[in-house]
């Protein structure tokens, strides 16, 4: 038993070493690019999928997907996130997944007035390329009419309440969190972090956005709803 485990460790470190060496010649981004150029859904570590069938039911839209070898890394629990490119942006929605006949079926719940849901229902064609990612957690609920909203910081697991009237950077600093920052005027991108979930408002343009996973500059965005930030 002992000998066996030693061997498997060796194999593990050898394969890691080879993979490291290979990544010098072909980076993960290059690998994914060429895999796509050759018409496959193979990826270095990302779980790409090909749409095999799509159907709508009372629950929502059900996508039948053929995935690449990385599905185990994103399919945990009952939910997963599915991303599709719409007008140059990767848009993400959460659905329930199940395995059937070697395919992964993802059901995205019905949503009214949601262009992403509508796209998944009506605009997807068989053969379309999508991506699966691990589901992000549920957001804490805001207290109605409160001036502050809860912000979950995914890296530290901390939850802090921040005001909705100042930039997220200032609000987080007031709450004792010290995020990386630079110019504090929306120029340098040093404070950029992924808004995993929730709605923020760009202070200079007044535009609100809520697309999960999109990076935002927290020095020029303020919270509009409960948030989850990759900090």
């Amino acid at each position, binding site marked *: 038993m002992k000998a066996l485990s030693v061997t498997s460790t060796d194999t593990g470190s050898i394969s890691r070493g080879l993979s490291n060496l290979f990544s010098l010649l072909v980076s993960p981004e290059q690998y994914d690019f060429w895999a796509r150029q050759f018409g496959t859904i193979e990826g270095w570590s*990302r779980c790409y999928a090909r749409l095999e069938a799509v159907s709508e039911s009372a629950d929502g839209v059900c996508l039948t997907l053929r995935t690449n070898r990385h599905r185990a890394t994103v399919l945990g629990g009952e939910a997963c996130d599915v991303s599709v490119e719409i007008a140059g942006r*990767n848009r993400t929605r959460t659905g329930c997944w199940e395995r059937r006949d070697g395919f992964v079926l993802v059901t995205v719940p019905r949503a009214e007035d949601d262009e992403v849901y509508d796209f998944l229902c009506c605009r997807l064609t068989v053969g379309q390329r999508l991506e699966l990612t691990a589901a992000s957690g549920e957001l804490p609920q805001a207290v109605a009419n409160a001036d502050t909203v809860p912000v979950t910081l995914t890296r530290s697991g901390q939850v802090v309440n921040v005001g909705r009237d100042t930039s997220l950077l200032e609000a987080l600093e007031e709450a004792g969190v010290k995020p990386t920052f*630079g110019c504090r005027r929306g120029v340098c*991108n*040093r404070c950029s972090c992924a808004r995993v979930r929730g709605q923020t408002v760009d202070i200079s343009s007044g535009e609100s956005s809520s697309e999960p996973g999109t990076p935002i500059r927290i020095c020029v965005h303020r919270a509009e709803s409960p948030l989850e930030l990759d900090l």
Partner: protein
Amino acid sequence: MSSQWSAGLNDAELAAFGAEIEALKQRHLAEVGERDARYIKRIVAAVRYTEVLGRGLLFLSFIPPFWVLGTLLLALSKILENMELGHNVMHGQYDFMNEPSLRGADYEWDIVGTGDNWRNSHNFKHHTYTNIKGMDDDVGYGLLRLFPEQRWSPFYLPQLLYATLLGLLFQWGVAIQELELGKVFKGRKSWAQLKAEMKPLLKKTKRQLLKDYLLFPLLSGPLFLSVFAGNLVANLIRNVWTFTIIFCGHFTTHAEVFPKSVLENEQPGHWYLRQLRGSSNLKGGKWFHILSGNLSHQIEHHLFPTVPAWRYAAMSQEVQAICQRYGLHYNTGYLHQQFGQVLWRIVRHAFPSRPEVCYWRTEQTGA
């Protein structure tokens, strides 16, 4: 604030100027979407195809013209990757796509300097404190005296030689810039801190050197030296090109350097004005702009670092119109003209020189 730093504009005019520039930015940001995504994906494809073709031809470089073509294609790939792709992506210009491989905060580029160092020394320090002496390390890169406002010492006499070396080894200059070695020698930074900061840099350097100078040459078998030389020359071409473009962006005759005091009581619009006065553009055709990573539109890049750079050509028309209305100088010229001015600065300020009009000193002394 001295009216000299406001280019003769009063506070209201300065604010109005800033508001017009800001409105222009918002108008373009509102349009950002599918076209921008398509553009950067094409650039990614160009980087990938030219690299594979270049490296492929170098593997066949027993036929001499293939060595030349392969080297040039690899240099082209590295130039596009550094400038139009890496530099612009790291500014967060394509963050809107929500595509992990094009995320500004994580992108790692194909040069020895780490993306993280660049994000701090360039994105933050250089872009926030553009041409402010003592705050923007790009003013002379701690090696050159390019403005009479910098204190002269005999160290600068052979600076044409330093500049030539910096041009040839530009990626190494960028790599060590953030380490601020001068502070270590002067005892203002500990060796322990330097060692800690060196760690990620050494890791990156090792990867870059292994890739270009060991693994790819080894893969070519008997052509080891030929591939090694091709990679070396491609890196040199990229170094000299980026050095040339970047130096033309802030060190032409009319590009200005500022004292730290400009930051005190900064008026609305003044930040934009400072970006305009500290930067200079290069005229050229579409391909010239792409190859310069659109840093040929240095003024627009400094006014709008987060707007996808392919839009600068259109924006520059509007910026020029705004500048004309406010009577502001818009610094632009062809590469040979602007680079000639840069060379003159390097030669001239190797020797003692004094600012011709010393705005802030007269202000400080109350003269």
